[in-house]
């Protein structure tokens, strides 16, 4: 099929960018979206033009590297699907496709479609872990965990850190990302000792990084390729309120932006 692409090109951080149009003829419906971009890039290089830069790695929907706004939707039109797993059979001959990077103050553009998502790592640094230094663990079966609790932890642990939730949110909030981690660890008995401090520190860090607040639009849940539920945000809010009320000291953990 023959397509027309409108792609955001931006040479470097802080420099002006613009939408550039590219024809994309002879695209097979069996190609993945990124393979379609590969083909366009090979043709650009042959013409002596710099290829379109985009993040990608595993191309199996698990590493979370790829992230594209495709026709205004994070990861494109197919639910529960990352851009790398989206196939061209979701489009039809003659389609025009708008491809842009994630848009959020906390995710500055690095080049073309690549953004800087290191703010996510800093949210994890604030408390998204269980302190269990190597060697300190007891036998794994000494701590039974009910299947429903373990499953709920896993549902939230499935987050791939791609940033689609932020890109889809009108407030550019990182609440779903942050809440997924708080909920994953908070659902498990191992996660209890640090639970209150974790909630305070991670939420504070999220605010410091410049993400917006959550006003429960629910766009994040729609965009999440791993189906993480907005229920996690309720859990985060409960933990945060409880932690604030019990005045757990958190500032020392959240650092400064």
């Amino acid at each position, binding site marked *: 099929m023959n397509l027309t692409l409108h792609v955001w090109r931006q040479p470097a951080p802080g420099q002006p960018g613009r939408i550039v149009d590219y024809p994309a003829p002879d695209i097979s419906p069996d190609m993945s979206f990124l393979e379609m971009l590969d083909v366009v890039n090979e043709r650009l290089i042959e013409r*002596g*033009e710099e290829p379109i830069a985009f993040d990608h*790695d595993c191309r199996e929907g698990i590493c979370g590297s790829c992230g594209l706004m495709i026709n205004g939707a994070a990861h494109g039109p197919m639910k529960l699907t990352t851009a790398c797993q989206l196939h061209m059979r979701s489009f039809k001959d003659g389609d025009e496709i708008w491809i842009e990077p994630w848009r959020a103050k906390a995710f500055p553009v690095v080049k073309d479609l690549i953004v800087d*998502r290191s703010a996510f790592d800093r949210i994890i640094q604030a408390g998204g872990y269980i302190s269990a230094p*190597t060697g300190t663990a007891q036998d*794994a*079966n000494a701590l039974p965990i009910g299947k429903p609790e373990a499953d709920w932890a896993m549902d939230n642990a499935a987050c791939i850190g791609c940033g689609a939730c932020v890109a889809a949110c009108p407030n550019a909030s990182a609440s779903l990302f942050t809440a997924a981690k708080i909920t994953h660890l908070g659902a498990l008995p*191992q996660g209890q000792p640090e639970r209150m401090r974790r909630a305070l520190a991670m939420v504070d860090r999220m605010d410091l990084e410049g993400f917006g607040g959550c006003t429960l639009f629910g766009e994040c849940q729609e965009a999440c390729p791993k189906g993480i539920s907005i229920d996690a945000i309720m859990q985060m809010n409960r933990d945060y309120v409880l932690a604030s009320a019990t005045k757990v000291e958190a500032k020392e953990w959240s650092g400064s932006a």
Partner: protein
Amino acid sequence: MALKLDAKIPSGPLAEKWDKHRFEMKLVNPANKRKYSIIVVGSGLAGASAAATLSELGYNVSCFCYQDSPRRAHSIAAQGGINAAKNYRNDGDSVQRLFYDTIKGGDFRAREANVYRLAQVSVNIIDQCVAQGVPFAREYGGLLANRSFGGAQVSRTFYARGQTGQQLLIGAYQALEKEIARGGVRMYERHEMLELVLVDGKARGIIVRDMVTGEIESHAADAVILATGGYGNVFYLSTNAKGCNVTAAYRAYKKGAAFGNPCFTQIHPTCIPVAGDHQSKLTLMSESLRNDGRVWVPKKAEDCGKEPSQIAEADRDYYLERKYPSFGNLSPRDIASRAAKEACDDGRGVGPGGRGVYLDFADAIKRLGRQAIEERYGNLFEMYQRITDEDPYTRPMRIYPAVHYTMGGLWVDYNLMSTIPGLHVLGEANFSDHGANRLGASALMQGLADGYFVIPYTIGDYLASNKLEKVTVDHPEFTAAKEAVEQRTRRFLSINGTRTVDSFHRELGKIMWEKCGMARDEAGLKQALVEIPRLREEFWRNVRVLGTGEGLNQSLEKAGRVADFLEFGELMCLDALHREESCGGHFRSEHQTEDGEAKRNDERFAYVAAWEYAGEGKAPILNKEPLAFENVHLSTRSYK
């Protein structure tokens, strides 16, 4: 100059070696640890677990990865599970049995002492991961669940849905981020290692490129750890992530680290078949599917074009169950892959180009119900459907073998140190534990064993036993290495030929797959050894890398990786040519039994081939580490 390969295997009975060694190794006292700096390259299971643990011990750690976050390392894509000799099923498992299965699975080409230690620490890994909050699958009683994997007759595989690698990596990543926040680890994301720096013969630092600013930087340390994964992307099409590459390991090889068994590559039997020329990578369908899926092809070639539902039970050949009745669909990977190839070579393959076999869940769905299957494999079925547009609940999956893992890697001794003092190599990047074939769910085990439980002890011994002068990046060795990297970068950008980097990579991959893939023979390998240098010569004359070195340039990144693959592929073929036997994933067509099984030659080849770089344009030198089997009887591997 031949190397002296000393594996430094501790004396004493196998089961006591590690304990004895742990006591004999020198320690660095807690106050002194902070005076030492360690570089860790790679942030996958091995790298992240090592960096976090070394930082917990008090060392100053710098960790580097090419991805934008350490959480994205390719360990994340491992699906099925992680082995451990917990014997929670009470089904006869033990450290000894995991050890035995791994040695046998590797077709007797791995080092006994390393493998035994791996089996010993496997149990600690599960404990550690649970303590970190890894949400392993559980039974209703709250205890951990297990599943079976190929090459084993016990259920010892722990898993987190079809995302075990992701969950283990996130556990290690969170430990790493905890240490970054504490100030024990300095993390360098989007940094690619391009050179190793030796001072007085010891590994003392690396040269990296900041992939965002383009700056070439020098980093010095007291020891260097490479945990940079495997080189499956030499085949272009593999299940590896697009960025996986051999550069760090190959640069170390060119600086004197011996490369062990480079021809040992694993072709995984259950991947989604190639759909067309545009294909950029192959997707694995977890081996765990073979717990419930039955592999078959039509008995008659003329049935291949039919809908599978139209082929009667009697006209189907469940070839794994037929040929290997005791392991059946859970035969090891090398054997299952070759059997699939044989069926397709026999004209009985299904799907486009006849390169595919069926993996059928109809019986399992009838027996257990759709919901049970959905719970076990739901995400894999969805992935399959997204890629192929076919519903595996109603129509059998089509699968075909694809390059998945590399057992070969930099040679290391028992302490995981390479032939360069101070250079340690962990995880898939080393050669040590899987011999000529890796069993399913053992890669995750090895990566975490190396990082959490081996290197934290052995690196202390190295640091305490060696007097290391203070070295800074102003040392002439750093200046020279940095200049060499800058010059190479300028060269890529100045060629301005007519072909893209990818086109060279694809062509190399095709040569490797056809001549050094699932089956190899002398004529093909010799031909590859002519074709690869020719392609390499064209690359350096005719590649087109646009843009500049300043700033983010993905073509430039790829050019560096492909340039190294173009040299490394030759080393693989050389190794495959010299090893005139079939063992594990290395199948030389000339060496097979009457019924087509791999025929080992223990008299001539029971050794590790450790290749040593001899200089530009010179043939590499073959060094041999003989393998002694004192605890396992060398026997013909049978899964019948």
